[in-house]
């Protein structure tokens, strides 16, 4: 069957870019992996959360007495039982720390927690919710940004005039002058929808507070460090009296690095009763009351020369913020930043407004504002190309970014394989030949960051750290702070360590997911683990390797001009690899030589002075082939190719898996997934009505790796996994455009919209002017 077609594997590495079994594989395929969902502690209570049925209301009174008197109920907590700390992930900016989680005075979205119960079992806790009496005073509410910013609209937060949460401005060149110089100008409006993460493991936590003042929280998380610090803030505990454990996480996609209601409520309950408390969100709660992709109202005005040269682009965006800031401020900036990707825009201006609305908060979701930006940008480019009669690959090639390009004042592009990606996709499309009627191919190009430079969390730590220790039998302990939520970082980082140190993956014992034992890493978000944690791991491994080679050199007495290296557990002269010593033997002697102390080193990484956004950018081009049924508008995905540049591939099985998963998720964003709301209430909070792609909708996928070398990345590697969600909605829309000549500007591209657009297009023109 069609599968991968890729570059020949690099022979220069022993571990990297080889198909290695996932280091968590045995645990996962035998059902041994213990997720927070599975954690059971002695004397554990079960918690449930009471949530607001109103989108905007004052809480007048909460009477918990009836609930507390139910048999089997240990107790109930409300906002009054907390310190009332307003927290937020943008910790550095107090005005953006606006969420209490357990609301005290006001609720601002349907689903906001107002109370939490702990009981002997889940059913009792659930039943108790019905007995908590909350008196609300309903307030007028607003649901869309353009209503929320009107004069006189109800205010969600007192300090936010006209409900404007944050604004962002990015500018270079002179856009107005650029439009004057353009031969052709196009204006378009777009609406990008929301999307739910739908992690298979819902948000959950088991919090256990003990009389010694220590709190242990098992939780499904993308960043145990962030959760630990935020819990310390809101609970008034010392940071390191809190231990967060997150060994296996059943999916994240951006939903699990902020403090959530399961973590907070279970902690508050546990602290009150000194018993472990487990809270697992139901699938309905997951849809209704956890954070989601940011919907955006987009305006793009683009000016080009008649030969397709890009001249100027102006972009204005209103994002639906929902009730709290969350990570929405980042999504706002990134959508503006990636709106210019992956092209050279001589003149660019972006103005973004994030607006509070009485809907569940919008935040980070894989792509972080870039899928929305890419959908709009790529859709418009195809329209422009068609109107100018220019080939859609050519117009992109003409304007594409390249190695050495500087996004003025924002970023340096050091490695960029975009051109070759365009070539590969062009080749694939040409190989398809003529397509049947109502079939089409659409493409989209993208670029994405490998970890962010900003420190809005206000951490004094290095962004990533690692510790490598080599033991007497040659077994290597690798301590990392990063989280594997399925994206495969455990395997990737183990491979980096193995490659650098010269051993094999099986020689490494990985320690992660426990703040008591692991060094700090900011977490798995913004595609930072491969580059940032990878660099920290590489540094630590290199340092230990140096210590080992010191002893090896002493033993082997090589000529000073000969270098030693380690590969596959063999320490050898590079020039004469047959001359060497076994790794384990040298290690044993090295340890003896150091008073029996294991060989240990630390590594860390923080991107200093690497621009405004990220130290490195991945690139790619995707093409999708579709069949459109012109009588129903139904879209069938038939085939897909993605040529991508993630620098040096570390974990090829991982990259392919990330790509295919990204396609399924991003195609869903393009045409099947949506969170329709009525007065702030999500109408499809279940997996029957929320439409995910299944095995039968997923097309054949071909992966083409374009190898570049990124100086900032470990072994030249960049991210692969989040950027890959950027192009699909745009490519899909462009495929529909190619197939039936209609361009839909509103996501998701449903059959109903397609049919309506086809009918509109085919209407006989009644007013023809000569």
């Amino acid at each position, binding site marked *: 069957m069609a599968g991968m077609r890729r570059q020949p594997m690099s022979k220069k590495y022993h571990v990297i870019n080889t198909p290695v079994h996932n280091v968590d594989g*045995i645990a996962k*395929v035998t059902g041994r992996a213990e997720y927070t969902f599975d954690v059971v502690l002695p004397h554990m209570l079960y918690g449930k959360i009471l949530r607001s049925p109103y989108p905007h209301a004052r809480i007048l009174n909460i009477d918990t007495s009836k609930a507390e008197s139910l048999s089997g109920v240990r107790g109930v907590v409300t906002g009054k039982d907390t310190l009332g700390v307003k927290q937020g992930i943008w910790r550095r900016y107090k005005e953006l720390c606006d969420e209490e989680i357990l609301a005290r005075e006001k609720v601002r979205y349907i689903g906001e927690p107002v109370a939490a119960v702990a009981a002997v079992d889940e059913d009792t806790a659930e039943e108790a919710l019905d007995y908590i009496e909350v008196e609300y005073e309903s307030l007028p509410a607003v649901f869309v940004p353009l209503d929320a910013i009107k004069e006189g609209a109800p205010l969600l937060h007192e300090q936010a005039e006209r409900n404007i949460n944050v604004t962002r401005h990015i500018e270079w060149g002179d856009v107005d002058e650029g439009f004057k110089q353009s031969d052709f100008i196009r204006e378009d409006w777009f609406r990008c929808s929301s999307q739910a993460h739908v992690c298979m493991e819902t948000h959950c936590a088991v919090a256990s507070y003990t009389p010694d003042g220590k709190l242990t929280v098992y939780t499904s998380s993308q960043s145990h460090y962030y959760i630990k610090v935020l819990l310390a803030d809101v609970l008034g505990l010392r940071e390191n009296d809190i231990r967060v454990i997150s060994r296996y996480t059943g999916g994240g996609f951006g939903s699990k690095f902020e403090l959530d209601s399961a973590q907070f409520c279970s902690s508050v309950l546990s602290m009150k009763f000194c018993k472990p408390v487990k809270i697992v969100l139901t699938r309905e709660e997951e849809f209704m009351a956890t954070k989601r992709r940011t919907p955006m109202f987009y305006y793009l005005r683009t000016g080009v020369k008649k030969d397709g040269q890009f001249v100027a682009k102006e972009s204005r965006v209103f994002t639906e913020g929902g009730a709290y800031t969350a990570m929405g401020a980042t999504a706002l900036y990134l959508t503006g930043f990636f709106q210019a990707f992956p092209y050279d825009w001589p003149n660019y201006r972006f103005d973004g407004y994030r607006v509070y609305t009485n809907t569940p908060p919008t935040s980070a979701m894989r792509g972080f504002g870039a899928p929305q930006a890419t959908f709009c940008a790529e859709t418009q480019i195809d329209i422009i190309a068609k109107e100018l009669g220019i080939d859609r690959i050519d117009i992109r090639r003409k304007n594409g970014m390249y190695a050495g390009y500087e996004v003025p004042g924002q970023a340096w592009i050091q490695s960029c394989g975009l051109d070759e990606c365009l070539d590969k996709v062009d080749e694939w499309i040409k190989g398809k030949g003529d397509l049947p009627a109502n079939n089409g191919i659409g493409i989209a190009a993208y670029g994405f960051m490998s970890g962010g430079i900003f420190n809005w969390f206000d951490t004094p730590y290095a962004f990533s750290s690692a510790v490598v220790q080599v033991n007497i039998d040659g077994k290597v302990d690798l301590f990392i702070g990063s989280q594997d939520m399925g994206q495969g970082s455990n395997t990737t980082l183990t491979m980096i360590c193995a490659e650098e140190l010269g051993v094999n993956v099986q020689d490494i014992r990985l320690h992660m997911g426990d703040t008591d034992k692991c060094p700090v890493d900011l977490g798995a978000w913004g595609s930072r683990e491969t580059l940032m944690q990878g660099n920290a791991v590489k540094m630590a491994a290199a340092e230990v390797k140096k210590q080992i080679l010191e002893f090896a050199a002493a033993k082997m007495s090589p000529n000073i001009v000969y270098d030693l290296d380690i590969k596959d557990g063999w320490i050898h002269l590079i020039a004469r690899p047959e001359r060497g010593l076994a790794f384990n033997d040298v290690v044993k002697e090295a340890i003896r030589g150091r008073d029996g102390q294991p060989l240990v080193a630390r590594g860390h990484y923080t991107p200093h002075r690497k621009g405004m956004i990220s130290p490195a950018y991945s690139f790619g081009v995707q093409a999708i082939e579709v069949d459109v049924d012109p009588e129903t508008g139904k879209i069938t995905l038939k085939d897909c190719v993605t040529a991508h540049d993630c620098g040096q591939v570390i974990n090829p099985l991982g990259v392919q898996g990330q790509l295919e998963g990204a396609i399924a998720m991003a195609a869903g964003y393009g045409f099947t997934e949506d969170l329709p709301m009525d007065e702030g209430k999500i109408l499809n909070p279940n997996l029957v009505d929320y439409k995910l792609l299944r*095995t039968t909708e997923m097309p054949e996928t071909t992966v083409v790796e374009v190898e570049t070398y990124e100086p900032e990345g470990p072994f030249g590697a960049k991210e692969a996994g989040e950027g890959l969600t950027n192009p699909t909605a745009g490519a899909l829309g462009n495929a529909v455009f190619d197939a039936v000549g209609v361009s839909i500007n509103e996501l998701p591209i449903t059959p109903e919209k397609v049919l309506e657009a086809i009918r509109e297009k085919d209407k006989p023109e009644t007013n023809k002017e000569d």
Partner: protein
Amino acid sequence: MDKIKLCITVNGEDHECYIKPKKLLVEVLRDELGLMGTKRGCNTGSCHACTVLINSVSVKSCSVLAVQADGCEITTIEGLADAAELSPLQRSFLDYGAFQCGFCTSGMLLTATSFLAENPEPTEHDIREGLHGNICRCTGYNSIIRAVKAVADGGYEEAADE
């Protein structure tokens, strides 16, 4: 509410327990028998992460009252491997990277095991249809299809008994 007696055989072991009749099979497996490998991802019978085999036939354990499985033989993920010897599908899943976060993997493996027992020579399309109920949010499914096809194509034949 009176509890009633339930007798089931799980992965070859007999179990007897007393449960409220409203208990679902998935709850008995996880909460009574401590077999945490079977997961739960929804409340609407949609995700199929909870798939187990009842008398070799794949079912959603969240959509079966435990009492209805009285006297039956259940196979869960814990029963696929023979001690340290992984089943062919478990091995091919490792080779093909047919999982990422792993939360749907137990259900996926049980479904695939039952599917191949009933369809020894499937086409790729057959496999997609056979596994259609199981949601995976991470992999995009294609690696799973490849892994199942590889087993079907005979790449993981058990060593002949000596």
